[in-house]
């Protein structure tokens, strides 16, 4: 989630919306569009279904806005609505069973990383290339759901360990275990491929 929401008084906006200024809801949700979409996509693994889930989550948030108590951040509340909506959709699609197959049974096993002798840093400028974005997206989407959701909440949306644990209804120590595994799995699946894509030429032209 980006930090722009911290400059706004969301509780005031919510009170105004509940008081009848419903158009303000457009502004309230703008900073969260990407977060909601990314979390929906992590469950649905399909852009158009993720978009449906996102729209539905925002509509639900509007309809249930009077239930928002302000005990958690508005963004966290929105994510919990999104996760519920996505889980419900998966159940209806009856694909939850299929996804549970790719959840590893052994929660205690070690994940060994890909071993390299050296690593040449890939600068963020490399993400201008579509193939680089797609490589990262597909590596994340290939993670089993329990690791994918933990990874996205912590490392992409930058929620705290406690917020992540609450949203996923799991313990703080399990968040840490799953996050570590997710990171190691990504390193294992991506290190060699990224290294191969990192061209020998310099990314920066020194002037």
């Amino acid at each position, binding site marked *: 989630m980006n930090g722009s929401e911290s400059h706004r008084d969301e509780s005031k906006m919510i009170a105004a919306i509940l008081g009848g200024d419903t158009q303000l809801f457009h502004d309230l949700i*703008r900073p969260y569009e990407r977060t909601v*979409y990314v979390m929906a996509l992590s469950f649905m693994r399909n852009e158009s279904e993720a978009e449906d889930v996102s729209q539905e989550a925002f509509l639900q948030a509007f309809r249930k806005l009077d239930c928002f108590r302000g005990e958690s951040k508005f963004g966290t509340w929105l994510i919990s609505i999104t996760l519920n909506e996505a889980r419900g959709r998966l159940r209806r699609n009856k694909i939850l069973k299929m996804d549970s197959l790719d959840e590893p049974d052994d929660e205690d096993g070690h994940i060994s990383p890909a*071993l390299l002798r*050296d690593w040449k840093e890939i600068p*963020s400028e490399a993400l201008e290339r579509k193939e680089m974005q797609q490589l990262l997206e597909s590596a994340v989407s290939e993670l089993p759901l329990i690791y994918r959701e933990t990874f996205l909440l912590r490392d992409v949306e*930058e929620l705290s360990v406690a917020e992540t644990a609450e949203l996923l209804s799991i313990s703080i120590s399990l968040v840490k275990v799953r996050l*570590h595994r997710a990171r190691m799995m990504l390193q294992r699946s991506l290190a060699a491929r990224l290294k191969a894509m990192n061209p020998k030429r310099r990314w920066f032209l020194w002037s």
Partner: protein
Amino acid sequence: MVLECKHVWDYISGYLDNTLPADTLRLVQEHLDHCEICSAVLDSTRNILILTADDRVFELPLGFSDRLHARLDEELNNRMQTSE
């Protein structure tokens, strides 16, 4: 006590998040200082996390925002009509 590589891998996340206890951190750091493989594992993991968290990955589909706000408008307008 000297850590083996496979034990160091278990601490990579804690190392990156800076949550390792001081004595564990010291052992991990000593290992990293002389082990090029574990250093490369650490550097590649850190690099991959920075890249994955970049806004350019997981971009919103084209027109996502317009379609969302149009759908919200329908809902908001319905709400207005029913409350009138």
